[in-house]
């Protein structure tokens, strides 16, 4: 058990910070019309939106892992101007507004975009499809994974990898048996962040993919639409989204703690 000294005056702004984040969530939970909650969140439109959100967020997180792990490894081990530029580029989706991301995606993959005619020849039409939702989510979420994995890899350093190499392991074996296990906590928390970001993605999706029940209308889009039609349903669905996010974080946290032997 470690004891960390926290200056006492920090507690006041820390408490304010907690209130600032917690109060709106509590207020939302309090304003839910519980008598109709069940019927509001089980309409066909709501369940379609929830299932679509979970499905697309899962696929997008997988894509983030496939593309993001190699990227993070390269960034963690590379040095020099090129690496700095590459890192800035990869982090761009993190700092631009999602709607700007959506516009950029349109310019690249849209019908009249850079790759539009090429995709058209291949018989691929991205616009207004579930694929577009996945592309939008992957675009905005990948930096979260890359950032936390790169941090974990840098902290882990290269000592064990060097030892592994001197013991005769090839680069791939070292990557699989040493690099990834060492960075596993960072990889897991990066995946959670990426999944949560996918689940909450709104701006890029509505700009790039459109909004159609069962195809492109994810839970955040459904919530935004219900605000116009039935505000009570919007509040109820918002709470569902919060619950799903908390559940995912809780489950993965528990798993990570058990992986890490219970103590960080």
């Amino acid at each position: 058990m470690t004891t960390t000294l926290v200056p006492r005056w920090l507690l006041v702004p820390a408490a304010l910070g907690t209130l600032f984040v917690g109060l709106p969530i509590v207020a939302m939970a309090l304003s839910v019309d519980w008598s109709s909650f069940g019927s509001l969140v089980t309409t066909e439109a709501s369940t379609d939106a929830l299932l679509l959100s979970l499905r697309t967020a899962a696929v997008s997180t997988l894509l983030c892992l496939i593309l993001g792990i190699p990227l993070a490894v390269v960034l963690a081990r590379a040095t020099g101007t090129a690496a700095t530029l590459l890192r800035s580029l990869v982090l761009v989706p993190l700092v631009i507004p999602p709607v700007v991301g959506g516009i950029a995606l349109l310019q690249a993959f849209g019908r009249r975009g850079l790759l539009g005619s090429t995709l058209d020849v291949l018989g691929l039409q991205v616009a207004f499809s579930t694929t577009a939702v996945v592309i939008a989510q992957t675009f905005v979420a990948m930096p979260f994974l890359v950032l936390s994995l790169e941090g974990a890899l840098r902290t882990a350093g290269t000592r064990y990898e060097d030892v592994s190499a001197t013991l005769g392991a090839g680069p791939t074996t070292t990557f699989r048996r040493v690099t990834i296990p060492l960075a596993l906590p960072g990889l897991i928390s990066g995946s959670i962040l990426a999944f949560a970001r996918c689940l909450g993605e709104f701006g890029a999706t509505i700009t790039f993919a459109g909004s159609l029940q069962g195809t492109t209308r994810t839970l955040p889009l459904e919530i935004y639409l219900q605000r116009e039609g039935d505000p009570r349903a919007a509040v109820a669905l918002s709470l569902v989204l919060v619950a799903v996010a908390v559940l995912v974080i809780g489950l993965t946290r528990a798993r990570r703690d058990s992986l890490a032997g219970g103590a960080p």
Partner: protein
Amino acid sequence: MTSYAVRSRTSYAVRSRTAVVAAAVVAATAALVLAGCGTSSGTPEPLGTEGGSQPTEARTLTVFAAASLQKPFEQIGRAFEGSHPGVTVKFSFGGSSGLVAQLSEGAPADVLATANEQTMAKAVADDLVKGTPTPFASNTLQIVVPADNPARISSLADLTRSGTKVVLCAPAVPCGSASAAVEKAAGVDLTPVSEEQSVTDVLGKVRSGEADAGLVYVTDVAGAGDEVTGIDFPEAASAVNTYPIATLRDAADASLADEFVEAVTGTQGLETLADAGFTAP
């Protein structure tokens, strides 16, 4: 397991300093939050004697209006400011239902103008409106296509051709209910590739060429310039939106709000609206 413990201090001097720092942090945070909110409310400030012997007071009139009214209303607002020295007209443009929802939650405003009568009826039912709303303009739907019309659309029936990417407003928003009425009247069943949140989103999808066609208001096409073309269709007559305007019950200055309503419904206001593509109610 990690726990954060705060070392207990007994020195009075240290404690009081801690308290001072804490108080300063709270004060600074509060000041920042308040500064972020701005001082937008209508506290009257004397403005001296401008252009005459009568002292005029700075007054602010807040108008909540449907997004489609933006261009003509900004023009009417400027004219109103010109004829009412000291008055500043501030607008909040947005989806009509969203505006009414904001008002129900206590947003301060003096005048409300919505894109259809149903949303105004909701404001009346919520007891937000003073008096009876006045209809002042109407708007009809038009088919909008990209300037080069890649799917060669010329009628509503063309929108049902397979492979045509049609974008509509979602049924929950006014332009969506108008689209549904038109479909019903024409006996066609459109299968959109996307049901957008607002009429401007539909326009955006067509403008960028992502969609082949959409249904938007005549005034949206008029405001969009050369990038899109509007196509009239006879069935549009079955879903004409009437725009009502009203002074709000909580208006800070009800007589000034009434004057703005008169400015919109007067000859000059109607002319400005007609220039933007609106027709008389």
